[in-house]
Every structure is written in structure tokens, then in C-alpha cells.
């Protein structure tokens, strides 16, 4: 299984950024790649408001063509769109033919972060994969639910700002360990246009495979297709114990977690 994460910078206009992201993808070695993940608010700061419908169409056509050209699943990263008189933050997963196979939509406001209610798990030709957007990743329950549903890899279009960024970076691996799931987390790089922390990371439960600092970057990781299934299989010799938290649960006791 081959995974790439793009840590791009915001440029002056969304179109400039889109062109730069396209170039980054084209310049990276995309041979036999399986999953490509882009960050939350991939093209511009959310403070610039929603993208217009025509540009959204153009962006989707561009990403769809890239997915098809490189024969890869592609998580587009998110941008703001206007839908039903609301501003929403939208993230999509495209399959190897460039077709949209999953979408997350979260209401957007410039105030405190808003969390979503949809944590999709998608069947791919590389097994079950979860997709998350933004703030949802930092609630422990979302990755947990996707892991319980059988996702062995979670693709996150996320954000880490400068505030408390090291704790969040460490927590990407921690969430991976606690849920025995691999995680590919994409964030935008720091730039003049936004105070982002970078720190994109690809991790497995037992170790961080690769992670970035604040600068522009492309992350690569590769492991055997059955590596995660093996790690998750109950091993009663207890040489591996990372599976334990998924298998030993007492679901009847967790009602308080689903109560407001």
C-alpha cells in the first residue's frame, strides 16, 4: 500500500494554489500510488469565504483528472462552498477513475469550530478506509468509530495551527496507537498567507513512518497490504498487544459516551 500526503502552501489566489498543488502532484513519483491526501482548506484561508461554483467545478475536474491520470484514490482536501444558503466546508474522496465516492460536509462559521456528524468508511481495493475533516479528528470518538467499523487506514484533511502544535502532532501517533489504525494526516504549510503549522504525518500504531515540519512537503509511505490486518489480529501470545483495545471492549458500559 502506497500513500502520499501533500503539504502545500496557500498562495495569493486559490487558482495559484491549485496550480501549485497540481504541479507538486505531477512532480512527485506517483507510480502505483494508492492514496493521495490533501489538507483542510487546501486552496485558501477560510477567512476568504466560499469559492464560487465555477471555480469549484474547475477544481473538481482538475483533481478528478489527476486521480485518473495517476490511478490513485484522492482525498481532495476541503474548501468552503455555498449550499442551501449556508457556508459549508466540504471534503471529497475520489476513486481511481476520478469519481466521487465519499463526501463530508460540515457547517462553517468563523467563530468556534463546529464538529460534524458523518465519519465515512469506504470500501476500496486496498480495504476499508476512513475519511475525516478538520476538527472532527481531535474528538477521540471519530477515529475510534471508523476503526471499529473496520477501517485500517484513516485519511485526514486536517488543520494544525501554531497554538499547541507539538501536542497535536504527537497526538496523531497517539490516536493511531490507541485505535490500532494507520493515519495519513495532511495540513497546509506555514506561509505569508496563513499561520499554519504543517506537521503532516503518516503513522502506524507502532511507529511514525514520516512527518513534516512547517515547510512545503510531500510525504511518502509504503507498507505491505496485510500489515495492518496482521497488527489488528488478536495475538494470544501477546508478543503484539496493539489489537487489545479493539477486541477487549465492553460495549454495554459505554452509554454515557453517546449521551449529550
Amino acid at each position, binding site marked *: 500500500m502506497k500513500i502520499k500526503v501533500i503539504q502545500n502552501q496557500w498562495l495569493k489566489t486559490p487558482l495559484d494554489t491549485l496550480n501549485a498543488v497540481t504541479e507538486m502532484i505531477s512532480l512527485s513519483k506517483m507510480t502505483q500510488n494508492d492514496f493521495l491526501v490533501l489538507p483542510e482548506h487546501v486552496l485558501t484561508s477560510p477567512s476568504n469565504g466560499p469559492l464560487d461554483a465555477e471555480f469549484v467545478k474547475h477544481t473538481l475536474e482538475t483533481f478528478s483528472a489527476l486521480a485518473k491520470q495517476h490511478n490513485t484514490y484522492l482525498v481532495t482536501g476541503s474548501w468552503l462552498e455555498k449550499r442551501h444558503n449556508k457556508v459549508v466546508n466540504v471534503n471529497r474522496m475520489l476513486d481511481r477513475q476520478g469519481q466521487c465516492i465519499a463526501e463530508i460536509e460540515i457547517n462553517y462559521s468563523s467563530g468556534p469550530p463546529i464538529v460534524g456528524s458523518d465519519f465515512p468508511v469506504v470500501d476500496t481495493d486496498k480495504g476499508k478506509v476512513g475519511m475525516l475533516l478538520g476538527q472532527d479528528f481531535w474528538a477521540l*470518538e471519530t477515529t475510534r468509530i471508523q476503526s471499529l467499523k473496520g477501517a485500517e487506514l484513516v485519511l485526514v484533511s486536517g488543520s494544525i495551527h501554531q497554538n499547541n502544535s507539538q*501536542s497535536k502532532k*504527537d497526538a496523531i501517533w497517539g490516536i493511531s*496507537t490507541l485505535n490500532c489504525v494507520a493515519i495519513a494526516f495532511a495540513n497546509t504549510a506555514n506561509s505569508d498567507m496563513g499561520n499554519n503549522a504543517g506537521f503532516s504525518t503518516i503513522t502506524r500504531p507502532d511507529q511514525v513512518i514520516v512527518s513534516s515540519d512547517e515547510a512545503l512537503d510531500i510525504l511518502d509511505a509504503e507498507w505491505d497490504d496485510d500489515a495492518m490486518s496482521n497488527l*489488528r489480529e488478536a495475538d*494470544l501470545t501477546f508478543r503484539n498487544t496493539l489489537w487489545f483495545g479493539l477486541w477487549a471492549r465492553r460495549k454495554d458500559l459505554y452509554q454515557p459516551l*453517546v449521551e449529550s
Partner: protein
Amino acid sequence: MKVAMIQTIWQKDPRDNLISACKAVEKSCLENTVDIVCLPEFFLGPPWYMPGQDSMKGITDTTIPGSVTEEFRKLARKHKVYILLGSMVEELADGNYCNTAILLDRNGDIAGRAHKVHMFANEMVVCKPGENIDVIDTEFGLIGIAVCSDFWVPETIRMLALKGAHTIFIPGGSLKQNLDAMINAFSTTAYLNCVNLIYISPVGEVHGIRGGRQITVSFAGTSLAATPKGILAKAPSDDASTEIVNISPKEIEELRIPSKTDDSWQSLILRNPNAYGYLLQNYADMGRDLVAETQTSIQQTSAVSEIKNKVTEDFTVGK
């Protein structure tokens, strides 16, 4: 709140573990003004149900209340200190066993207890699991106790934090193979639940047969204290030690206040419980009965031991 974390090392003669634990508690109270003294999981020594430990039955387990708790009640009263006896293999009146942590208050009374809820290895067969995950009201406010493997099911700490615990004590046993991942998962858990965590492990080793194979189980100390802001203390992996840490319930209360400008500490608040119904389901790929498999493994191990004993007896008689 000043906490003494006492990392014990299993003595050659398990009967000495109680004496050395009492001495360590006494010493930490004489040298420091502490509020809570914490002992690790299995501070009395390896339980009889671990590989090769059959002979520990009646030695490293105890009734509660009983002679072990009585020793520590005296110490709690003498030093006016809380003591976490975490944990002991508790022999129940009906002949069953539990992995139990006890919190004594400054008067030596039992202020709270926690039974391990998520059973590990042979415990799946030989121990009765706890049936609730609840906080304990103390003079410091609400605290929680999670026994060892309960930590590795993240729902446990999440529930205790949501129920209002500002500090959660985890008597556990660090497995050597996972130390780096464990330390990072520990600080992640403190951060994402906005809670103080105190983890206390023994140092020790047992040897025996599991699944027909000779194995060694190593408990590698590495007791830890963390606040949401990071690791405060880390004990060595190979020796006894006492770590003294100051933790602040008030700081947790302050970090948990909803903020419009800083979401750094808000993952306990920014939740959408109506969307979390799947947490009440089992893991999708769980297609095996681990209790039955463990039962078979224990039976096979017993059979091997019996044959070995018989061979030894025959050999001795023949000789």
C-alpha cells in the same frame, strides 16, 4: 495535590513485596508532605494466573478488607495520607478473583475502589470483571481509577473525564515491547481528555509456558505522570523509584472552560455524542471467541505441567 508514585520491584521472595511496599510508603511520607501515595498494579507480586506462577496462589492474592489493607490503613492514619493500593488480586468470598485497586483516605477508610473492567490474557478466564466505570469523590474533587489494560480501551479514560475526573490514576504493568508507543499514547490521552494522568507500574519478570511455548513476561516500570500539557515525570524501566509530582485540579478546570479563540484543550467539549452511536457496537472484524481460546490454552498448559510433574516424580522414584 502532591502525589508520590512508588514504582516497586518484585522481590525474589514474594512475601517480601508487602514489606518493601510498606517501607517505600513510609519513606515517601517521612521525606515529603504528600497527599496521595500510589502503588502499582500487582505490587504484592505476580498473580497466580500468570504463566508459571501457580505457586503464588494464596501469597500474592488477598481478601479485601484483610491483612494487607490493614497494614496500609495504619500507614494512612499515621501519616494522614491517601494511599492507592493499586492493584491486588482480590480473592472474593465466592472463590472468584478480581483485579482490584483500593483508595484509602487519610483516616485509613476505603474511599473508593475500582475493579479492572477490560480483562487481559488469562484474566479473561480467571477474573471477574468490574461492571462500572465511575469517578470517586474526594477532598481534591472527582478522580478516577483505571486498572492497567483499562487504559488501552480509550473509552475508559474518556468516560471518567466526561464524568468530571480531573485526575485519573492508572496502576498498570508496562510491557517492554510497547514502551515508546505507550508513553506517547499516555500523553495523547492526557491532552485529548484534558486530564491529569498518574501511571504506576512495577518492575519484574515472570517465566512460564503460554500456548505451549516458554515465555518471559517483563514489566518494565516507566511509571509516568502527565498533564494535558505534557509529561511531568518518568521513572526508570529497570529499577524501583519514587517520583514526587505536583498536579493541579484547578488548572484542569481552567483549561476546560470553553474558549472562542483557543481550541487547543477543547476536544473534551467539541464532541457530537448524537453521532457516536457506533461506540455501542463491537469491533467489526472480531470473529473469534478469545475467552474460549484462552481457556483452551490454560488447559493445555496445565496438562503439560502435569505431565512434566509426573515425569519428574517417576524419575525421582526410579532414582
